[in-house]
């Protein structure tokens, strides 16, 4: 029915987004060592590619994507978040990825446009 298709279009599909993000990270960071000079470039590439693909999904959402890359050093890192939004329509997706030299944390928030 037309209405079921509409409902699928309006929800935030967490798994699909996680796969998109993981593909992009693998492609860019792969087996690289943490490099102070190249990391900003990697971050730009990954965020731009991911947002372009999210945009192509053509869903009525505004997206915010934040990415952090840390050197593996034994240092502690803790993150907490609090939201004031509509929990039926808005969603969040977090992807953690690591290799031998660095950690990568990606947060994506999708906020629904009211239609």
């Amino acid at each position, binding site marked *: 029915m037309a209405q079921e298709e509409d409902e699928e279009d309006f929800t935030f599909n967490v798994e699909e987004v996680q796969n998109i993000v993981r593909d992009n990270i693998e492609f860019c960071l792969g087996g690289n060592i*943490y490099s*102070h000079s190249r*990391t*900003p470039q990697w*971050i*730009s590439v990954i*965020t*731009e590619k991911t*947002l372009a693909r*999210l*945009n192509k999904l053509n869903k009525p959402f*505004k*997206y*915010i*994507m*934040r*990415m*952090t*890359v*840390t*050197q*593996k*050093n*034994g*240092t*502690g*890192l*803790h*993150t*907490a*978040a*609090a*939201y*004031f*939004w*509509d*929990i*039926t329509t*808005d969603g969040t997706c977090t992807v953690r990825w690591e290799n031998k030299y660095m950690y990568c944390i990606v*947060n994506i*928030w999708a*906020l629904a*446009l*009211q239609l």
Partner: protein
Amino acid sequence: MADEEEVADEGENVERVASAQSDVGLSPTQEKPLAPPKYEVRPGLGEKFQAQNIREIMLSTMQEQLVGRQYRADQAPRWAKSISNAVRQRVQDLDMKRYKILVQTTIIEMKGAGIKSGQRCIWDPETDEYVDDLYRNDTIFCYTIVYGIYMY
């Protein structure tokens, strides 16, 4: 007309808002009746995102929580949670109409690790904004960012 029926249905939807209290534990979602749609696409005068006030809120909250403290791996998650909840609560008290608020707090131990962070957004740059700030002492590095997204 079909259009009018859709408008009437949206007016009866209930908005579920989840807000977590840090000292009482998670409170159940509260249902508030949603206001009828007004189709305002820009915030009015005096209703814009209050970036400067939010920056002061973030800085004072981080300082209250962290001044004089040393990094401790078992307590840092609690500090991060309470800072983000407190900032979220105080930003809500500013009562900026039709703005959705996202707060994220990151606490890092100062151990010499390199760290880089970046963000991209797809949003409406005339209405949506973010404010970020950091607090540093000898062992703790705390970064808080607040996003305000206008709801049409």
